[in-house]
C-alpha cells in the first residue's frame, strides 16, 4: 500500500511546535491580570495627566531624598507617549523611553517561555551589553541630578 497516493492518509510531519505543553492555569490568570491591568493603567494614564493629578503615587525615594531616581518621571513620560509626544516623553524620562523596546522584547520572550516553553530565538545577551546597561542606568541616575546645563534637562 502506497500511502503517498492517498492525500490525507499520511500523518503530517511532526513539528516541534505541535508539542507545546498545556499552559498552566496560574500563568493564564497572571497573563489576564497583566493585560487587563496594562489596558486600564494606560487608559487612566491617557486620561489624567500626572502633572495635574494628585492621586498618582509619588516616588518614595524622591520624597525622602529629593533626588530623582532612574524611574522618576516614568508616569509623565508614559502619559506623553500615549499622546504621541515623543520629545516630551524623552524629556520626562529618557531612560524609560529608550528601554521601552527592550522591555517589550524581553517581556515577550519571557511570556512565550512561560506559555509555550520556548522563548524567541535570541541568543543570551553578551554580558558586556548588560554591564553597559548597568553603566547607563547609573550614569542616568547621576546626571539627571546634576544642577548643570545640559544634564538638568534629564530631570523630569
Amino acid at each position: 500500500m502506497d500511502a503517498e497516493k492517498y492525500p490525507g492518509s499520511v500523518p503530517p510531519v511532526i513539528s516541534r511546535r505541535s508539542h507545546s505543553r498545556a499552559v498552566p492555569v496560574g500563568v493564564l490568570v497572571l497573563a489576564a491580570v497583566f493585560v487587563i491591568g496594562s489596558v486600564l493603567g494606560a487608559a487612566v494614564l491617557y486620561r489624567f495627566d500626572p502633572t495635574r493629578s494628585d492621586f498618582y503615587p509619588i516616588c518614595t525615594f524622591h520624597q525622602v531624598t529629593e533626588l530623582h531616581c532612574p524611574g522618576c518621571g516614568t508616569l509623565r513620560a508614559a502619559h506623553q507617549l500615549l499622546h504621541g509626544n515623543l520629545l516630551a516623553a524623552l524629556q520626562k524620562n529618557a531612560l524609560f523611553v529608550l528601554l521601552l523596546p527592550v522591555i517589550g522584547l524581553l517581556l515577550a520572550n519571557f511570556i512565550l517561555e512561560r506559555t509555550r516553553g520556548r522563548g524567541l530565538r535570541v541568543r543570551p545577551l553578551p554580558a558586556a551589553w548588560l554591564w553597559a546597561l548597568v553603566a547607563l542606568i547609573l550614569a542616568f541616575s547621576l546626571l539627571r541630578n546634576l544642577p548643570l546645563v545640559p544634564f538638568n534637562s534629564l530631570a523630569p
Partner: protein
Amino acid sequence: MYKILGSDQQEYGPVTAEQLSQWVAEGRANAQSLVKPEQGGEWRPMGSYPEFARALENAPVPRAFDPVLPGENNPGSAPGIPNYLVQSILVTICCCLPIGIVAVIFAAQVNTKLQAGDIEGAMKASQNARLWCWIGLIAGLITTVVYLFLYGRGEIPR
C-alpha cells in the same frame, strides 16, 4: 500491519512496518508516536516496539531551523539559568527604589558567569537577581499602598 496516531491526533493506517519506518524517516512519526498492531494490542509508543528500533535510530536529526533547546542537543550552550533582566529593569523603572539597580547588576553577573563557564556562580547570581526583584517589587507595592491609603485619608500635603 499497524495503526498510528499522527501528531495531529488522527489515526492513520493500517500500514505495513516498512511504511511506518518510511514515515519515521520522513519525520512524520517518532519514538513517542503511539502505535497499535492492527490485530488487537494496545496503543504504545513506537519506541517500545523492537521492530522499529532500527528505523528510529536512523531517524532524521531535527532540521536546522528547529530551535535547539539549551542543554538538549548542544551541551555547549548555556543551560536555562534565567537572569531576570526584564524584571530587574521593570523594578528599576517602576518601583522608584534603587533596589532595581542591584537586581540589574546581578542579572549582568549571571551572563558574565555563564560566559566564563561558572554554572554554579551563575545560578547564585540568578537567585540573587530574583531575590532583589522581589524585594524591589514588594517594597514598591507597600509604599504605593501606604501612599494611596494616606491619600485617601487626605493626609498627603500638596
